């Protein structure tokens, strides 16, 4: 039976099937735990406790979540234009350079209130630039964005190593990183911020970029579904021919969308460089760019889904760290493996369960009533 052209109710396609896919991925992860001799139930308990059990854990969870929201949105925006931006990692890295250059140049001369927006802008701009080139090459030179962004990740990495080792390194030290920015210009931490309102929470890396991430979710939602440009983006993504018919220039959409995607990936730099590390260090994107792909696939490319998926990955990261601390057999790479499983089941095998669900739906439909 060919089930691909049977329409299912939206809640089955949007909620149930993705949830089943996630469940399968987590089931596989549990199996891996069993295999290496760890009780999965116990592990889940430790992870949840580590992620939510105390306010420091929550802070860390949300700190990771922030990064995933940025990279998840970056991937999702591109997906809507039928572009697959694998370059979030490199774009975030280069965005860090933008932020660092601004801070290194002006942190002693400009007040934080001016410098921070300036730094955010520079991050976005540099991230956008690193995505612009692959976008431009796809639109006007015909090279595919997937391959080009992969290559640009490596080029970014080489470039940053060179800059950090040879040029930006703080004189007189061994490790390749810049000097610290002026303390007064650091993006406020969440515990400092809520202290203004008289609340007292534990000190964690969580900072105000979390709000920026949430704001980006709203803005992306508005942009894609509530503006003309988003309409054009989706039109070009679904059907290039329809876009041409409507007088939309798909090539321009490709370039603009890639820039936007890169700018969003740049949010990682705001969190990591301006909010947490306060200096440019090697490899700070640490795979967040790739996780963004899992987040976006899991969240069905929708900001609400992305927030939930980011939270899940935040829990996995923070809980995974706790787990690695409690059970020596486990390292944080377990989270990487789970991430791979989620990309596999929610992305590549997204349609695997659909025929089953369709069959189940056809069997149970008469019972649930004829509203279909």
């Amino acid at each position, binding site marked *: 039976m060919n089930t691909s052209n049977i329409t299912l109710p939206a809640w089955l396609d949007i909620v149930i099937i993705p949830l089943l896919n996630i469940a399968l991925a987590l089931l596989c992860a549990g199996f891996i735990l069993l295999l290496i001799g760890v009780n999965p139930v116990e592990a889940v308990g430790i992870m949840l406790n580590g992620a939510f059990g105390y306010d420091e854990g929550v802070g860390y969870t949300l700190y990771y979540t922030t990064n995933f929201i940025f990279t998840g949105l970056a991937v999702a925006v591109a997906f809507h234009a039928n572009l697959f931006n694998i370059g979030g990692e490199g774009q975030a890295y280069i965005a860090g350079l933008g932020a660092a250059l601004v801070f290194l140049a002006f942190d002693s001369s400009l007040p934080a209130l001016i410098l921070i927006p300036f730094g955010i802008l520079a991050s976005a701009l540099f991230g956008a630039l690193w995505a612009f080139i692959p976008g431009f090459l796809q639109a006007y030179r015909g090279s595919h964005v997937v391959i080009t962004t992969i290559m640009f990740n490596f080029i970014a990495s080489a470039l940053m190593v*060179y800059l950090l080792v040879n040029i930006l390194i703080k004189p007189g030290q061994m490790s390749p990183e810049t000097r610290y920015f002026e303390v007064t210009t650091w993006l406020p931490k969440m515990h400092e911020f809520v202290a203004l309102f008289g609340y007292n929470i534990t000190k964690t890396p969580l900072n105000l970029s979390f709000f920026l991430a949430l704001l980006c979710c709203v803005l992306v939602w508005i942009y894609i579904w509530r503006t003309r440009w988003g309409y054009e983006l989706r039109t070009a993504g679904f059907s290039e021919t329809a876009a041409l018919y409507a007088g939309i220039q798909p090539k321009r959409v490709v370039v603009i969308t890639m820039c936007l995607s890169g700018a969003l990936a740049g949010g990682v730099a705001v969190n990591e460089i301006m909010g947490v590390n306060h200096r440019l260090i090697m490899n700070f994107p640490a795979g967040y760019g790739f996780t963004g792909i899992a987040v976006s696939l899991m969240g069905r490319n929708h900001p609400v889904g992305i927030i939930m998926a980011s939270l899940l990955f935040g829990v996995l990261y923070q809980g995974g760290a706790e787990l690695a601390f409690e059970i020596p057999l*486990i390292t944080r*790479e377990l989270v990487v493996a789970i*991430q791979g499983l989620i*990309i596999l089941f929610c992305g590549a095998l997204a349609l695997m369960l659909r025929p089953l669900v369709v069959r189940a739906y056809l069997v149970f439909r008469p019972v649930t009533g004829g509203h279909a």
Partner: protein
Amino acid sequence: MPAWLADLYAILDATLRLSTPLILCAMAGLFSERSGIVDISLEGKMLAGAFAAGSVAALTGSAWLALLAAIAVSMCLALVHGFACITHRGNQVVSGLAINILASGLTVVVGIAMFSRGGQTPSLASEQRFLPVDIPGVDALASVPVFGHFISAVINGHNILVYLALLSVFCTWWLVYRTRFGLRLRAVGENPLAVDTAGLSVSGLRYRALMICGALCGIAGAYLAIAQNASFVREMTAGQGYIALAALIFGKWRPVPALFACLMFGFLDAIAIRLQGVELPGIGEVPVQLIQALPYVLTVVLLAGFIGRAVAPKAIGTPFVKER
């Protein structure tokens, strides 16, 4: 032998060693992509293969068993790729990425669980590895001036997998251009519908191509863990799978040009190591990173059509849907 020639030979010798995993992976990718399946998971398959080889060599002490294990594990991942992309028509890039990330995580997780060495496998004794071999009769040639020197200094004295990699290029060429399987393989990457209406199974051909791809990636992984090095180290592939993919594109999806692209990228790597911290007269110190990034930059430039044109197999990336 003058010093500069010795230097050159040393660099060429290193080139061959460094190119070997690239060559094997590029040939692997050639089978997959010529059949119409994008494969960015060369990296992950090679990594998993390296881990399998490292562990099995450490556990059994047999390099050959380790090689077989590497091939088997890598083929399993290729099977997953096929299951997602061929059977379930999933997105080929997403599937490849999933395999890369899965391999990157699992090798460390399982490695620590098995050996508790922070993701590394135990160091291997020499008899557990593939060691350099002498080509019979090479001593007799050594005294022949230029040619003999070249053979003994560059070609001779590698481990068997290096020669296997070179052989794989010939085998790939022969299989792709001289056999029935090759004709069908090329056809299925160009126009799967033509293959289907000719009464052949598109899925069957693609699965077979992916199996060969997996086997070659496994050999590449084994080379890294038990020939070039003496243990598996986390992330030891370090992007070489992607460089191999770049070389494949650079070679326009053909075996011999891809071989030369691999050798070129290997050569760049060899001189990058060589030039580390060396002041070149008149130029100054060439940044190693620049040389390391060159394969990627060159591939981008090639793909953008600034030097020639790389035309991919026509059907690449699109799942085959039989119903019209």
